[in-house]
C-alpha cells in the first residue's frame, strides 16, 4: 500500500463480465467489470485503487496509472530482449 492509502492492482485479464486483478504480491482479486471505471477495465492497465475503511478497496474510485504501465512495459521489454539473446535459433534438440 502506498502512503496515500492506495494500492496498485493490474488488470491481468477479462473473463466475460469479470475483471481479474493481480496485486504486486501476486494475489488475485475478481471484480465485476461494472464496478470499475470504464478506463480501468482493459487488460494490462495499472490501477491505483484507494483503500477505504476496514482495508476495503474502493473499486469505483480506481484510476489508471499510464506512467507506471509504461515503466513496467519498458522494464519487461528490456528483460525479454536480454533473454532473446540466449536463443540459439532454428530447430533445437534438448
Amino acid at each position: 500500500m502506498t502512503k496515500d492509502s492506495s494500492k496498485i492492482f493490474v488488470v491481468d485479464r477479462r473473463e466475460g463480465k469479470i475483471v481479474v486483478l493481480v496485486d504486486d504480491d501476486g494475489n488475485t482479486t475478481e471484480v465485476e467489470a461494472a464496478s470499475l471505471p470504464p478506463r480501468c477495465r482493459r487488460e494490462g492497465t495499472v490501477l491505483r485503487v484507494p483503500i477505504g475503511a476496514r482495508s476495503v478497496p474502493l473499486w469505483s474510485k480506481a484510476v489508471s496509472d499510464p506512467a507506471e504501465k509504461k515503466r513496467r512495459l519498458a522494464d519487461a521489454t528490456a528483460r525479454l530482449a536480454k533473454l532473446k539473446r540466449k536463443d540459439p535459433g532454428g530447430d533445437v534438440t534438448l
Partner: protein
Amino acid sequence: MTWLVILSSLVIAQATGSQGAAATGRGQDEVLSIRQLDVGQGDAALITTPEGRRILIDAGPNAHQVAGILRSEGIDTVDLMVASHAHADHIGGMPAVFLAVTVRAYMDNGIPHTTATYARTIAAAEREPGLQYLAATGRTITLGSATVRVLPPPRVDGSQNNNSVGLLIEYGDFSALYTGDSERRELTHWLRAEPIPSVELVKAAHHGARNGVTANWVEATAPQLVLIPAGSRNRYGHPSPFALQLWTAGGARIYRTDQMGEIEVKARRDGTFTVHLSTDRGGR
C-alpha cells in the same frame, strides 16, 4: 495416490495394434505421459517422454503448487518450460518452478505483461544458469523420441489469449495439441496459416470457454480425447455448454479436472493411449 484406468471402446479397438509394436521390440513401457495437473482454475501440464525428457506447459495460478508437485516426485530438471501466455492463471507458479528445479529451456509468447507475476517470472528466467530462451517461432524441438512443433502466435494485437503459444506434440502416430487460452481469432488464424492435422488429444483452449473453440477447429483436429482444465465453482462458466456440445458432437470424449482431478494420458508410439484418473480427485 491410486489411479483408475479408463479404456474407451475406441482405445480398446486400437490397442490390438499396440501388440504389433511390442512384437517389433518396443516395450509397452515406452509411453509418452501427458498429465493435466489439477491446479484449480488455471492450467498446467507435465509431459514426460519415454527417455525421461520433461516438458512443463504452464504452471497454474498458485505460487507453490506445481513446484511442490515436482519436488515431491523427485523431479530436478524440466527440459522445456512453456508459458503459453502471460496470464496469472498460467504463470503464477513459474517463479517457484525456476527455484525448485533446473529449467534447460524456456519459451513464451514474447509479449510482455504489466503484472508483478510476469515480472517475477521473467526475472527468474534471467537468473536461471545456462537457460536457453526459445522464441515461439515456427520451429521444431526434439526431446528424445517426441517432437514439439510450435504454432507461432499471430501477433495481430497485444491480447495475451489470442497470442497464446500453440504446441503440436508428436510421438510416433500419437499427437496432441496445446494452445493455451487461444480464442476464435487465433484458432482461425492457425487454420489458415498452419497445417493443422487431426490429433488424438486436444487440450481445450481457454478452459473450455465458448470463445475457445470453433466448429472448424473441431473438424480439423477431430480428437478422440479433450482435456479441460478448469476450477470447480469457477465464476467464469468454464467450461461452457457450447464448447462441450461442439467437442462431443465431433466425437471426442471429455475429461475435466474440475470433476476428475488430475488426468494422465499414456500414449504409445502406434497412436493408442489409455487414460488414468486419480482417485484423489482434488476438484480444486
